[in-house]
């Protein structure tokens, strides 16, 4: 099994992987970072979204070995010094979740939207940009409100 190195949430990590090991398996099973979720096996739900070299990607649809030597940020990497990231805080404040299963992916996707589109987001843009993130609980209203407020406070 080849050993790979990676920078995850600012820390250098290494581990043995098989060719077929998915990035999400490496994060969850090897590194114990279980905040990144797996909600489907068709690459459609977005529960597994993390940032690789600054871009939001579905970690269930990337080989860990292909991400060797990249910088990965997961939901665990957003908070600073025990203080929630503004987008996390906005999800809490606006009740942007019910069961919470989709939330890590939603928040990682939302932070990526702000990076690409800026802090001032209208509802249409948010809904369109969240096409790759499925929530089976909320009906999206509060997620959209949370993303809007979180973006403004970032």
């Amino acid at each position, binding site marked *: 099994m080849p050993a790979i190195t990676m920078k995850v949430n600012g820390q250098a990590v290494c581990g043995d992987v098989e060719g077929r090991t998915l990035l999400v398996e490496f994060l969850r099973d090897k590194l114990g970072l279980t905040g990144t979720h797996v909600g489907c096996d068709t*690459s459609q739900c977005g529960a597994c979204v993390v940032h690789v070299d600054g871009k939001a*990607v579905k970690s269930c649809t990337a*080989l860990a070995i*292909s991400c060797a030597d990249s910088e990965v940020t997961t939901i665990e990497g957003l908070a600073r010094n025990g203080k929630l990231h503004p987008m996390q805080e906005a999800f809490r404040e606006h009740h942007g979740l019910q069961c919470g299963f989709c939330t890590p992916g939603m928040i990682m*996707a939302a932070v990526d939207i702000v990076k690409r589109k800026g802090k001032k987001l209208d509802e249409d843009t948010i809904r369109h940009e969240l096409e790759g993130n499925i929530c089976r609980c909320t009906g999206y209203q509060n997620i959209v409100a949370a993303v809007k407020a979180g973006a403004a406070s970032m």
Partner: protein
Amino acid sequence: MENFNYVRPAKVADAVKAMKKAKDGKFMAGGHTLIPTLKQGLASPTDIIDLGGLKNTGIKIGAKSVVIQAGTTHAEVAASKELKKAIPGLAALAGGIGDPHVRHKGTIGGSVSNNDPAADYPSACLALGATIHTTDRKLAADKFFTGMFSTALKDTEIVTAVEFPLVKKSGYAKFPNPASLYAMVGVFVAQGADGSARVAVTGAGPGVFRVADMEAALSRKFAGSSLDGIAVKSKGLNSDMHASAEYRAHLITVMAKRAVEAAK
């Protein structure tokens, strides 16, 4: 998902070599078709040759054509300011592929090589009269796409770039499947430099195809109203749980008109 040997060559010649050596090898670009296929057990190659190490990305606008390197992601194509000016329909098409996360990984080379009957890019290639550059040759889109999930590519041949001629106007309209976001019907229209029009349809049939009647009408006058009364026969079109062949046939004219109206 079965295990496999993994290599990530830095040179295209090494990628071809690795493929020749492999028992049952597969190239991987963005992996956004390949990895789901592996996960479902629909393919179990012995070797994966990751083309990501080639770093062949970029968009070059020339005097007569635009060359997009095979490894360029959908997000990069959609965001290119120069391309939005040069071939607006193509940039718009890329911005509507899947969702933002898919666009960060999926590549133009992977999309044309895969030739999914519901993929977006093949319609742009066919309507714009693109040329597919490979490690072995240059092929016109009309010759490259040969049917459902099939292309003229040999097993050891790699798509290196796609070249699109500059046109007067281009536009794309798709009716996405709301779950998969792939095209139920997508129509790309282009008005060439000489005024002649080309129309290519994806999602509706077993593979991307052109519509001669629409091309003739739009070559006379490039306007949505030129398509009034032109219907595509439903025979041979896809019928599935999402839409009947008749519904898809109807959508072709609707989407073609929208594409013409959106064309810039």
